[in-house]
């Protein structure tokens, strides 16, 4: 495996959200990951963005409740 290219904060932050989304190519992913491991400031930023993402993900779940689930089950029984 090639040694990881060292990148600065600007480059790491530019790709941070795509890094958290697992959308970077393998080489760029390793570069950002390596930078975060050695940079306290970017580590804090990464932690914050990940926690905010988790909170948003939680907000994407809405309890359907018994009556709505029953409505969908009734619909499905007609298929």
């Amino acid at each position, binding site marked *: 495996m090639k040694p990881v290219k060292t990148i600065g904060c600007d480059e790491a932050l530019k790709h941070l*959200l*795509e890094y958290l*989304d*697992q*959308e970077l190519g393998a080489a760029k992913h390793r570069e950002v990951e390596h930078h975060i491991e050695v940079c306290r*400031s970017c580590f*804090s*930023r990464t932690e*914050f*963005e990940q*926690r*905010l*993402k988790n*909170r*948003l*993900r*939680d*907000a*994407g*779940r*809405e*309890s*359907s409740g018994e009556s*709505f*689930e029953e*409505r*969908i*089950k009734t*619909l*499905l029984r007609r*298929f």
Partner: protein
Amino acid sequence: MDREWFEGRVIGLLDELLGAALRLAKNRHDAEDLVAETVTKAWANRRSLKDAERFRPWIFRILTNAFLSECRKRAARPTADVAVDDAGETDASFSLFEELHQPFLLWWSNPEKEFLNKLLREDLERAVDALPETFRTVVVLAELEGLAYGEIAGILGVPVGTVRSRLARARGQLQKALWVHAQEAGLTRPARKPVEVSHEASEDDRV
């Protein structure tokens, strides 16, 4: 695909489908109708699902298309959405962390963490709901439902690069809205200036 398998998958995803529908339609009544329409369309088009492992992105594609098609029917697209791909360029660089972070505070004080602890689910919902439809759709698919950029591009019929740029701007707008709300609701502490050390001699120093 048999009906029992289909029902199991739909019921298993019901909270996620309703959550996405609620953020897209912005009210519970329309969201429930949207999910019901999605389930009906999914069953009618079940043969178009070639790989059972892809059920989740497949049904979210149907949900999103049903929502967008309803918007077009009602001609309810906000006019601000028309040129959305050219707008909001500056928002892409907005960082909530940069606004909250106070590097001169002592290590045990963490305003970013305090902010997230105080942030309510309804604050996030309000911020998502305030996004223009084009940005809201991409945030719902990427952030709330965790779909890959390629899957979102397929759902929206746009290139992956467009998904990337829309998402960057949508996130910037979302973070800016959260920052404005945080200030209004007093969720942030006022920025404390570092203690200034005077280099001028005080009265006592003068001999």
